[in-house]
């Protein structure tokens, strides 16, 4: 009986993961890139360009003259100000059911957010972390500044 339940939970988890899109599917796309903006992915750093996709686990870093605007698969909009660093810790979105998870960490700088369908579907499915807080997003437009120490 117990084994049966475990098997069911595993099957349901696999189904959810499958429905939420492939792990290599882009989470979003750069729409605005000004000044120095780079993406750290798999240990390498590449300059960001308009039209470049953003993936789960990417870290986006802007220089003193840099800023960037990104649209996400769930219609969320994000922008980063100068001297900022944002990690895309987790992104999953099921376009049929709107279930998903959207978790980022702003370690320095400024961030503007308009939440999308993930946050709209489920309270706190979207989270933004700073070094001293966790924001549970229940909609929609907000600003975050990571002060640093």
């Amino acid at each position, binding site marked *: 009986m117990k084994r049966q339940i475990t098997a069911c939970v595993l099957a349901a988890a696999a189904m959810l993961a499958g429905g939420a899109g492939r792990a290599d599917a882009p989470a979003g796309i750069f*729409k*605005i890139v000004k000044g120095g903006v780079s993406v750290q992915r798999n240990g390498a750093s590449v300059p960001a360009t308009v039209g470049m996709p953003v993936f789960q686990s990417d870290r986006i870093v802007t220089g003193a003259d840099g800023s960037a605007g990104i649209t996400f698969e769930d219609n969320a*909009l994000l922008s980063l100000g100068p001297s900022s660093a944002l990690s895309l810790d987790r992104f999953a979105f099921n*376009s049929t059911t709107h279930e998903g998870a959207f978790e980022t960490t702003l370690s320095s700088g400024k961030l503007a957010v308009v939440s999308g369908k993930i946050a709209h579907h489920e309270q706190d499915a979207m989270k933004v972390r700073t070094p001293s807080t966790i924001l549970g997003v229940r909609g*929609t437009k907000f*600003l975050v500044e990571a002060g640093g120490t």
Partner: protein
Amino acid sequence: MRRAGRILAAAAALLLAACATPDRIVLLPDDQGKVGKLNVHGSAGGDTLLNSAYDTATVSGGKAQRSTGNAQDVNKDFGGVLATLPQAPVAYTFYFLVNSDDLTPESKALAPAILAEIARRPAAEVVVIGHTDAQGSDDYNDKLSLQRAQAVKQQLIALGFDAARIAVAGRGKREPLIPTAEGVPEPRNRRAEVLVR
């Protein structure tokens, strides 16, 4: 001498703590004027709810302090990052003939306006989301809604738009424009939303 050093160290630590800029979170009204909610959980424990326009949480030492800001200060401190937010997506609705993926003539005429919007946006993407009315099973409607989205995609490709930039999704009967009871035919729900992002 040693004592003076200790005092200096203590003073330096105080100065450093004072200089450490706190984290700041500001809730804004969205473009429609609606205000959402944010739960701010400080690392020192405790939750602070922001739920009205320009509510601000200032977090230092992991503790959040709530205050009310204003549009002027927000524009001064965050004007640059706000100006870098991408344009919000815009949605167009296409309607279908009953039980089919054939568009109504009025909907076919929408395509040029969508292409113009696509041309205006940097790295524009199109997402076509199909919907159905409440007749038939979930499974049938999930498939029909996807077929409708694919039919619109084909039309946009025929008009010269890049196939690689068009994504499709089916929402079945989950998101009716006009809510109805199960099994009720409703032409306004047999639609596809074309989102330009």
